[in-house]
């Protein structure tokens, strides 16, 4: 998978036609063959743009900053990225006309070992669902498969699972990189940081970390698109996907096979009120 050339062409065209103010893509980091996200304001930087199976980032994360969300931005979206873009649009964080999305029919990106990443193996929608132009050949939606790590973990008894999580979350340093790297964590002030609330505290203990991360995962329940930006950002290498995948599984099984961001104007399983919901239990 290498779309570098096409993307460079489209980006220069967009700048030439004055359709965008910024372009968000990826470039080589300069010391190994890994990449970093790259925000272009000057068309001269376009030759630095690359896009291949090492372009692992969900670039929609860079649309939520104050200086980008009101500007016209062009960017590249893979299947999962486009789903989070869909959610950002639905949740009124962006205006559709301000975004020029180059959709990719993704063949999967690699992990740090150079193998195909686990979330790409389990991916349900490799093609972009929202785009202005689409590169590659669409492969269509695939069947939902349960996460391998989660399966392994849920087979263990409850005590072992609790032990596992308390051991893992011990390593959390409360740096909040997971939150900052998540495209859907756009609140001006996170609930965890509210001074007026006595619910959360910022102390660096295992229980505080667990409390904060569980809250975070519940706020992403029915919204997480499994892009794993959070895991890539985490300096302690926490298996954060376990929390999200568990929520995704429960919602998929109980809410009419709901998957986040697949359709326009779909706010997710928890954010609906319908008069056709049976309300026999409400007095």
């Amino acid at each position, binding site marked *: 998978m290498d779309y570098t050339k096409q993307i460079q062409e489209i980006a220069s065209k967009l700048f030439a036609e004055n359709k965008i103010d910024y372009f968000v893509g990826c470039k080589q980091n300069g010391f190994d063959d890994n990449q970093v996200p790259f925000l272009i304001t000057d068309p001269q930087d376009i030759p630095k743009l690359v896009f291949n199976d090492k372009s692992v980032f969900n670039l929609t994360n860079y649309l939520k900053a104050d200086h980008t969300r*009101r500007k016209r931005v062009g960017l590249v979206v893979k299947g999962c990225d486009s789903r989070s873009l869909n959610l950002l649009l639905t*949740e*009124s*964080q962006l205006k559709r006309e301000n975004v020029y999305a180059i959709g990719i029919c993704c063949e999967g990106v690699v992990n740090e070992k150079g193998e195909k990443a686990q979330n790409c193996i389990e991916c349900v929608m490799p093609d972009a669902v929202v785009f202005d132009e689409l590169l590659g050949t669409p492969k269509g939606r695939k069947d939902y498969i349960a996460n391998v790590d989660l399966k392994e973990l849920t087979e263990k008894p409850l005590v072992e699972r609790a032990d596992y999580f308390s051991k893992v979350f011990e390593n959390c340093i409360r740096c909040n990189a997971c939150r900052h790297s998540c495209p859907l964590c*756009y*609140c*001006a*002030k*996170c*609930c965890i940081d*509210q001074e*007026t*609330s*006595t*619910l959360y505290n910022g102390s660096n203990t295992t229980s505080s970390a667990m409390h904060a991360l569980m809250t975070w995962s519940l*706020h992403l329940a029915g919204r997480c698109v499994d892009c794993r930006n959070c895991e890539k950002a985490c300096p302690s290498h926490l298996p954060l996907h376990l929390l999200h995948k568990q929520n995704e599984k429960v919602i998929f099984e109980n809410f009419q096979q709901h998957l986040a961001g697949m359709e326009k104007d779909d*706010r997710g399983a*928890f*954010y*609906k*009120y319908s*008069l056709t919901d*049976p*309300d*026999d239990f*409400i*007095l």
Partner: protein
Amino acid sequence: MARVGVFTCFCGANIADFIDVPQVVEATKKIKGVKVSAEYKYMCSDPGQQMIRDAIIQNRLTSVVVAACSPRMHEKTFRKALSDAGLNPYMLEVANIREHSSWVHQKDKKAATEKASDLIRMAVAKSIANEQLHEISVPVTKRALVIGGGIAGIQAALDIADARIPVTLIERSPSIGGRMAQLDETFPTLDCSQCILTPKMVDVASHPYIELIPYSEVIELDGYVGNYKAKIRKKASYVNFSTCTGCGACTQKCPVKVSNEFNMGIDKRKAIYTPFPQAVPNKPVIDAEHCTMLLKGKCGICAKVCEKGSIDFKMVDEVIEREVGAVVVATGYDLWDPKPYEEYGVGRYKDIITSLEFERMVSASGPTNGLPLRPSDGKVPKNVVFIKCIGSRDEAKGIEYCSKICCMYTAKHAILLHHKVHDSHAYIFYMDIRAAGKGYEEFVKRAQVETAATYLRGRVSKIYKKGDKLIVRGEDAQLGQVVEVVADLVVLATAVIPYKENPPLARLLGISYDKYGYMSEAHPKLRPVETAKAGIFLAGCTQAPKDIPDTVAQASACAAKVCGLFSGDTMKKDPMISTINTENCTGCQNCVTVCPYQAIVTEEIPLGHGSKEMRIVAKINEGVCQGCGSCVAICRSMSINLAGFTDPQIINEIVSI
């Protein structure tokens, strides 16, 4: 520094028998912040309230906890006691130790006592974080909208208008009157339905405070209690009502004949028609689906014969707006289609009819001039079989509930049959006879004794044709044997079902409905007239199957509620509603979608101080918000606060146990 007073109630024996109240009172004294802990036999009584008032003044209490029954019962009573003693009424917390403890843990006094102490401790902790709240005033538009012109709508409109409150009554058909206008005589006194209904219909038309808009429907309702804005579509009648005299020349000359729905399709009406002779308003309308002038552009006879020139083929639907403060929903009922009863030959045998068809036939003004006739050959039937519970109480084919009125009207039909055809005989197959009501049981007795109707307890398994007779095969459960009745006519007492357009109407009004399609009341026992949406009330069969006396009573109850609502220029509203912290709001609008009352809208505010760029944030409509808290739970950025249930209050409660 918090100074809390705790007052524990015995509730006679209700609480004291299952909870050790003195022990609870002693335990309460040790809770931090509690200055007074007292007990009394009936806290809600005047001496009990006096005790609270005195304690507030003597001990300079900052908040009060009453440990008694459910706050639904007496929260208002105790709030008033607080405000009488000069304390903000919202500094009260009620610990429900009756429904939540003594009633449900009657077998374990020790555990019940402990739980009561826990509940009180939580309420004390919450009350310490209580904030002073003040009632909200909302302006009121004093005009009511009544949807549906049946007996329920008519009664509600008349009662409201008699209190000198303007009413807009809308009816989807060309005339008011509804189902009651179709009936012949009414149980249990056998007065003529038309004779008691038509004077009321005329009253509606002539009442100075009632605006009658027939042939119309609601298409939109915006706003909130006291301040609704309704959009009403007046369907094109193609007749100018202001000049039409109702002479009837047009209906006589119209050449198009269509099935008459008022007479259940037994006879024909014209394409320009008044539904029945006593219609109010007594003006004809053109049925656009059948009029050849409107369909093909040929004919126009009605326009030629009309001396006043009232026919206007170019008329179009008109949308008008009315500002109203309250809405009464009285859409009425439909009848269940008995098609699934294939073994009875429904649809195959012409001489199987529904009870409303029978009703139209025995009506003096009906299509057969008051004589029941067999649809197949027009002969007068001698043996008539009535089968009850067609669709009702039938989980397999119909609906689970009892339609309530069929037992009574079937008894009425037996009597009416006897009155019209003296040598006839009625056989009635029934499951149970449900005749609870004033004079009802006596009425059924009258059918059984005076008219000698044969009541057979059991279900009919099959109906088949033999010659020109119908053989009704069923079970007589009391004899335990199969019986066969040779019948000339079979009448099916089909179930009452909600008006078919109820669900879309409910969605439009923003009220809820049950699985059958009946509109849901706010509380099945204590608020049977109100809906969960303030200012919208229910009358008649729109809520559940009802007979005429119950319908009229409920309609009058609606009128009383509307008059109560309009008793002042402004309405007081509970201040326990949500507020938005716009600084923190991300504008994701999830709260807008989860709000069951459509109380949240969006507004644009400047991005920063003096900035020209705008951003979207949520905004609560104070008049509509009911304080359910759905938005608070859904808000990820914790930008919504529910007064009376703030985070510190809830956390205090949780931490205290």
